[in-house]
């Protein structure tokens, strides 16, 4: 088990290294560099200015050399400056990361709080009208374009009813405490939650139904264990294993999933930051941001595997080699 974790950790580092080079190269493939954008913003910039700035930003070197320079510095903890924000990369990233984690964390907890009871509820009465209705609702949540849902929310709650702020992070001039931020979190969290509840609910339902067919449930029922207890204590506990897995595996994609929500509600999160940095040619931010997202995915995978092994002793890690 420990050895397995060590191997996976090593793999993760290798993957991260490869990814960093891939992403660096991809960004390099994009036409235009930061200086081109500057020239475009200011018609008075001359060729000499451009060459001078390009040298200043180190853009006149070949890409692999720039990558090595970046890597050397990054390994020493120097991630450089953000071009778009004129601040050191960690200083820009850290608050954004926290914001996104707050947003995602709240919506994840909320989704699961709804999805688990709903999924169990549906699993206990398969193929009834209730089940079908829940299924329909789940698909509806999965199928709605997220920016569309966000816009509807803004129109309804911010404009028509006027009960929630249309966007932003916190009131102007406030201290940015969580309490102040709550009203600003309601709509983004609701949007993210509504689009993810469906998937989780269907997953819980399937997992619980699978468990309810197992022998041990039949045994428990035969022994006269009350149905409530059978479902909630026995079936659900085992069904949670795959549910936890799917949640952990989804970590990385959550970043990108939040992009749309973040930009609709002017919420300053990672998704939006990565997007802006790519379009604004902010190498340093884009790289570290994308690597963080990769790291999240890898961590999610690892957690899922470890959790799986811990929860279900039947699983060993040699199984894949046949």
């Amino acid at each position: 088990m420990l050895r397995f974790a060590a191997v996976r950790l090593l793999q993760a580092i290798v993957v991260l290294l490869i990814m960093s080079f891939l992403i660096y190269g991809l960004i390099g493939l994009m036409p235009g560099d930061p200086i081109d954008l500057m020239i475009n913003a200011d018609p008075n910039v001359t060729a000499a200015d451009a060459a001078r700035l390009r040298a200043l930003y180190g853009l006149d070197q070949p890409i692999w050399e720039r990558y090595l320079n970046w890597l050397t510095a990054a390994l020493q903890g120097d991630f450089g400056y953000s071009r778009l924000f004129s601040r050191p990369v960690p200083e820009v990233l850290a608050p954004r990361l926290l914001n996104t984690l707050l947003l995602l964390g709240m919506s994840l907890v909320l989704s699961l709080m709804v999805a688990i009871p709903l999924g169990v509820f549906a699993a206990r009465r398969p193929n009834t009208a209730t089940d079908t209705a829940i299924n329909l609702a789940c698909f509806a949540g999965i199928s709605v374009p997220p920016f569309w849902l966000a816009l509807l929310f803004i129109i309804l709650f911010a404009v028509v009813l006027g009960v929630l702020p249309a966007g932003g992070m916190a009131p102007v001039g406030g201290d940015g405490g969580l309490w102040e931020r709550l009203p600003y979190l309601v709509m983004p969290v609701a949007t993210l939650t509504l689009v993810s509840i469906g998937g989780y609910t269907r997953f819980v339902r399937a997992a619980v139904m699978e468990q309810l067919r197992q022998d041990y449930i039949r045994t428990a029922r035969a022994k006269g264990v009350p149905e409530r207890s059978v479902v909630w204590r026995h079936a659900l506990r085992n069904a949670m294993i795959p549910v936890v897995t799917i949640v952990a595996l989804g970590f990385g994609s959550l970043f990108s999933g939040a992009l749309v929500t973040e930009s609709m509600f002017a919420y300053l999160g990672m998704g939006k930051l990565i997007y802006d940095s790519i379009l604004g040619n902010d190498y340093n931010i884009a790289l570290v941001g994308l690597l963080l997202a990769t790291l999240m995915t890898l961590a999610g995978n690892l957690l899922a595997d470890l959790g799986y092994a811990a929860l279900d002793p039947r699983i060993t890690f040699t199984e894949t080699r046949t």
Partner: protein
Amino acid sequence: MAINRTLLGYGRFKRMGAVAAVLMGMTSAGAGAATAKDELVIGAVQFPGTFHPSIDAMATKGYILGMARRPFTTFDQDWKLICLLCTELPSLEKGTAVEVTRSDGTRAIDATFTIQPGATWGDGKPVTTRDVLFTWEVGRHPLSGVTNAQLFSKDIVGITAVDDKTFVVHWDKFRCGYDAINDLLVLPEHLERPVFETDPGQYRNRTLYDTDRTNPGLYFGPYRITRVEAGAYVVLEPNPTWWGEQPGFKRIVVRTVENTAAMEANLLSGEIDYVAGEVGLSIEQALAFEKRHGQRYNVVYKPGLFYEHIDLNLDNPILADVRVRRALLTAVDREAISRQLFGGKQSVAHTGVNPLDRFYSDDFTKYPFNQQAAVKLLEEAGWTELRDGIRQDASGRRLSLEFQSTAGNRTRELVQQVLQAQWRKIGVDVRINNQPARVLFGETMRERKFPAMAMFAWLSSPENIPRTILHSSMIPAADNGFSGQNYNGFRDAEADRIIDDLEVTCADDQAKPLWTRLQQIYAEKLPALPLYFRSDSYIMPPWLEGVRPTGHQYPSTLWVEQWRSK
């Protein structure tokens, strides 16, 4: 209306105690519309990357800094050059500018400026010529990262301080624009020198404008920045050391909302009072907004110096024929586009010179919409045969052109589709292939890789001599490092000569005929297809007074102290 609804909403929440209190605090500004307001919340679609005045030009940065700092000279709302930080424009007549001959024999000019006597940094230190000299020093340092170094390292060959408040600018050659130092944006020497001298190469990252943005000593305008929440908003409060008229608002907040649909929602919900034209909604949105909410807001359209046009690659064999270029323009009903899409608020352009410019001439060829005439021109140019609705020449070549613009710019995409349909009617096949702005400007235009047509806008200051756009020495190519903006590849000896002459012809009555001739050449040769001049749309609440849009690249906030709440 919105306020009532807002209050109703709060009432509903009140039962929940604390939450209601939070919500109340949140938009307290929305509550007191009846009385004069102390606070103004402005919506902007961008957040500035840096707050340093001379690094990386950006509309929102200029807009915000307009409230907190002032340039020496700028163009006012009537497009006249005026002094803001200086006391009086230098002039040859008054002797504050003198023609000189440099030691190497070049004819040049020296101009004297005097800093406003009351100009004082927010920390109480007066703005002096030491600041000006420091600014010049930073500007011409090769590592400082200042965007427009040409002004500091080439155009200005020296600055002499006469005393604490007066300095002389030595220009590299004789130029009529000797009185304009719009881009010499003074930096506080007492704060920035230590940062700069520690490591000039790191100055752009370590400047106090980015590391200590609320330092009062960085600003000397009517307001100073007191709070910056990166990406979200900037708070400005009156600067006690301001020398001019006392500003009307106790607090101005510039909030960033990038999504324009969300911006409208913010406006309607009262979280934003005013959407500035310089950094706000497109004209289409403003028109639609006015239609629905015109009684609650003043929507002001200010025609400006955004020249929307289509650059033509004159090296394209089809477009090299001027008859084809004229046919393309004649086949387009620009009046109808302006009327139907832009509510008549954006005037049709005939050349790159705006009708509001004092050098505008009306004496040149125009190309009113006329399909038959367009067809005739094409036939004269040899595009006679029609196959599947597309013209061909004798050799069987199809009259097919690629049309590029910035992807995601909705207005341009709409206009493109209208143009495509109209050209189709005279048998021209136009393929739209748009690229993200960073690709289009970063590479396609700069390296002249666009095969035929590209639609975008030039933003200029008034009376801007179009050297970089029309002079034949400004055609980007590999051997000149792709400098210049003559993307069309326009070469015209007479135009070159006029441009050279204009730079040294200072008297209006002598410059006017040159300008007229330049417009005639442009209209005749059509290096680009002029479309229209864009208007900025300002959505103001009725209680906001004193905002005067400029219509050029210098923002209305340079007169923010005149803004009042009714």
